[in-house]
């Protein structure tokens, strides 16, 4: 192994990427951990917004529906970078005003929390649309049957609608997760120490731009490919007992 590395003239690269100083590999992995932390948080937050948003769009009053329409349209038309800047500055400002307005102490928002909040709002708009489509795909009869059994709306949602829509929602949700992981890179521009910014700092400190950018690209790709495998499993599980989409379509 070692001779191979030397034969290829890669010993310098290996040294740069090694996990302990003077290698910068540890920094990249820390950055990746931050990226994933923010991506997971934003994804979960986005799903919560999406669930309520989808319900609001389908069952809400006209005002709620229009407001949600404005929300999803705006988020889908304005660049994430601009939204991140607006939400980053406005969000923390606003939250503190609300909190102090209720008479509590000013809260300090960590970088990770701010990242989760801004990306979560963005994710929420897309999740709203994905889940709305999935709920619409659930046969009306199933929901009516649940109502007829006297289930409350919340119980219907928990026991019937959500399980039944999962198989329709998963392809869209898998895509959203990939967007979430990639969007964390945008936080580099606001100065969060996630993978892309760590990479840039390592690259500019050592001037080994190609080495580090390619290494980071490899890390992102690993996350993407691994997630693909996981989501395929989840999809197969969620579709248990159902005909596959292809059969259903024909």
């Amino acid at each position, binding site marked *: 192994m070692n001779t191979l590395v030397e034969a290829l003239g890669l010993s310098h690269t290996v040294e740069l990427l090694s996990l302990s100083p003077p290698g910068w590999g540890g920094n990249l992995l820390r950055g990746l951990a931050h990226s994933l932390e923010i991506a997971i948080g934003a994804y979960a937050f986005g799903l919560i917004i999406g669930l309520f948003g989808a319900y609001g769009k389908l069952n809400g009053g006209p005002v709620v529906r*229009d407001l949600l329409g404005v929300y999803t349209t705006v988020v*889908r*038309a*304005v*660049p994430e970078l601009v939204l991140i800047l607006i939400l980053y500055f406005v969000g923390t400002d606003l939250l503190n005003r609300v909190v102090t307005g209720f008479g509590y102490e000013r809260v300090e928002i960590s970088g990770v929390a701010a990242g989760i909040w801004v990306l979560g709002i963005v994710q929420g708009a897309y999740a709203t649309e994905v889940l709305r489509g999935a709920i619409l795909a659930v046969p009306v009869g199933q929901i009516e049957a649940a109502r007829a059994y006297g289930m409350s709306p919340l119980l219907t949602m928990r026991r019937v609608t959500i399980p039944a829509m999962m198989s329709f929602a998963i392809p869209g949700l898998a895509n959203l997760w*990939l967007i979430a992981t990639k969007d964390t890179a945008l936080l580099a521009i606001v100065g969060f120490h996630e993978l892309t910014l760590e990479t840039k700092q390592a690259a500019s400190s050592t001037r080994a731009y190609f080495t580090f950018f390619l290494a980071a*690209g490899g890390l*992102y790709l690993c996350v*993407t490919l691994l997630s693909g495998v996981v989501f395929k499993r989840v999809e197969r599980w969620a579709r248990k007992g159902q005909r596959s989409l292809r059969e259903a379509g024909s």
Partner: protein
Amino acid sequence: MSAFRAALLPHRIVMILLTLALVAWCAYSMRWDWIPKYADLALEGLWRTIWILIVTTILGFLLAIPLGLAQAVGPWYLSAPAKAFCTIIRGTPLLLQIWLLYFGLGSLFPQFPWIRESELWPYLRQAWPYAVLALSLSYAGYEGEVMRGAFSGVAKGQIEAAKAFGMSRFTIFRRIWLPQAIQNALPTLGGETILQLKATPLVASITIIDIYAVASRVRQDTFIVYEPLLLLAVIYMAIAGIIALFFKWLEGRVPVKAR
């Protein structure tokens, strides 16, 4: 007409009035005195954003056609690289791709004196070739996947019929296959183009002065935070709206395929 009637629902009238009140409040109580000073710069930046969007969309789409074709019907030695390319582009953040090209590739070139002396150098030292390359490749990566489906979706019988008419393979491609594939892909093109618009501000991070960079400059020069960002959001929404309308018009012009 129906859109007009939809706006006349009572709760919508109230909401429109509230929005107008909000806009009026923004206009009066926020600071907009910087606009005249930066208007020229902003128009230049807007033009640059639109220019980059149009050029990279067209280049990216042209690249997506062979990528889609290779994946749909190509032999493995063409389809495998095409699939790998799409996976890599879609699996890594665009910002990383832009920085890899601009800082990575850009730092390699000057190490070779003959590049610095060549006639290409005046272009290579500017930022826009890297931005155009990165955004075109990105669009091609996403749209290549769409085109794969679009090519596969063209009915076999049509191509067989064309063969029976004695058309050459190229004519079949040009007259039957490609037009139908584009027609198949058209509904997604509008959305993909809006996504491309949303990707353009990333080029500001490699010194290109697009509309986003102008807004950043206003923010830096005057320390006004919200106003330039809000105006920027409105501008992007307007462009996205125009793109959506354009593709709607385009779809309306293309005859609907009988199923």
